[in-house]
């Protein structure tokens, strides 16, 4: 039986997910993800006509609080875990875009 996913599918999903996969990982994922999707397809058998989707289960709407300014992290705290901080400018540094 053919797998649910092709190598091209895995390439497409990896691009969307910003993952660079090795050839070994791709082969493994074609197989493993197909296997899981095949199992997940059992939900297609259920008649859900007119059933509303559940995206969250809170019985009441989330609580709001007054929108007042309060202290957050300092610039130094926000930069403390950065892989390439620029403390002089107070910014995160990244490689060139293109």
């Amino acid at each position: 039986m053919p797998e649910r996913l092709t190598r091209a599918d895995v390439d497409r999903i990896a691009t969307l997910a910003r993952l660079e996969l090795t050839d070994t990982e791709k082969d493994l994922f074609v197989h493993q993800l197909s296997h899981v999707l095949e199992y997940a397809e059992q939900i297609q058998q259920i008649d859900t006509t007119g059933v509303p989707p559940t995206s969250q289960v809170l019985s009441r709407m989330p609580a709001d609080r007054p929108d007042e300014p309060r202290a957050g992290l300092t610039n130094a705290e926000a930069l403390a875990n950065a892989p390439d901080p620029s403390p002089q400018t107070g910014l995160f540094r990244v490689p060139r875009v293109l």
Partner: protein
Amino acid sequence: MSTIPFRTAREIRDAVRGRSVSAVQVCEHALATIEAANPKLNAFLTVARDRALERARAIDREGHTGLLAGVPVALKDNILTRGVTTTASSRMLQRFVPPYDATVVTRLEAAGAVVMGKTNCDEFAMGSTTENSAFGPSRNPWNPDHISGGSSGGSAVAVASGMSPIALGSDTGGSIRQPASLCGVVGLKPTYGRVSRYGLIAFASSLDQIGPMARTTYDAATALAVLAGPDPRDSTASQEPVADYLGGLTGDIRGVRLGVPGKMLQEGVEAPVRSAFYAALDVLRGRGAELVDIDLPHASYAIATYYVIATAEASSNLARYDGVRYGFRTESAGNLKEMYERTRSQGFGPEVKRRIMLGTYVLSAGYYDAYYLKAQQVRTLVRRDYEQAFQKVDAVAMPTSPTAAFRIGEKIEDPLSLYLTDVFTVSANLAGLPGLSIPCGRTPNRLPIGLQLTGRPFDEATLLRIGDSYERETNWTEENPADAGGS
């Protein structure tokens, strides 16, 4: 208090309050126990020795009388601790030092608890064995060749091996209840929204919930009393009034109606688990509970539903790990896009990548309706099953896990076979319900078995009352792996 390891939180708290032992003595004992047992069991990734001793000294100085005065607690390593490395057991966060504490940490410390350190888990809480940790698996104290369960495996091991009487875990599809079951301790997943998640590293935001693990139901109830309540920093933390969990532990369960979904238990449950489960029901019936056969018709679809929804949410939540603001960044990247892709490929382990891929797929154009929307509709049906059951019963009883702890490595090659072991736990997360796992037996090889109780939203009190009542007649919580010669 000659041997502090294996004392309950209640005993330690009472002794510290009564000044028969100091918080510093308790803390030093806990540190020594960790030092002796952790190299073999790998429960702790980080021991916060200085922070713990400093806190213990402050408790002695103040004469703290809080609900957890002087009680050591361990925290799953996806719960943020200011100044103490928090990794989610991932290379991605190997050197991440949070600038703030999670609300649960603040609440525990205000009640007098002493944070001992951070426990191992599956990477980003994705898994049920801790084999997905970037830092090696935790080992079951009852037999170190066997899994601890997961994802909160390190927390379960810390409690079961006497390193810490209380530990916090997080539960997205069973990650508190299942390792509690497999390690022979009590684990409570509160109702969705009962405990603040501010400072919890997100996995699947409509399912994640923090909760306590402990040696007894009384200790778990004590911890919940400290943790529960609204939080201005978490809009999903409920305003629902907090019940008197400890006052409800009367031992009296006469007239409590307990639902048993018999049809679900016919297949796939190991024989020792099945017999321990039905023996536990006999004990509860003997104490006055009424057993009622119920049906949860969509329960067999819960795993498929769960893995669509949880991976979809995970793929979105984990998009933040991009190597820019915090966490790991690749060494080699010519431009920004390469930096993103290589950072994520080198920083995440195989299971996390698998789930991100699956979640991205079910959310992608052309598949969204067939998988994600459909799963959300089935989620509604799973909830309705429980709503109907709770018109007839006060709680639902099932085994926590269909098997006891299996050997490390036994299922690692086949992700789906592992996902299927979540059969009894995921539906409580889909429906947002509280779930309690308590020890109820051992296999012939002395591995622990757990009984799971699932309740109405915000009715943790009934689950705790049943669990405590059961413990009054049984002695599973009094045994420990050291007695069994296991560690």
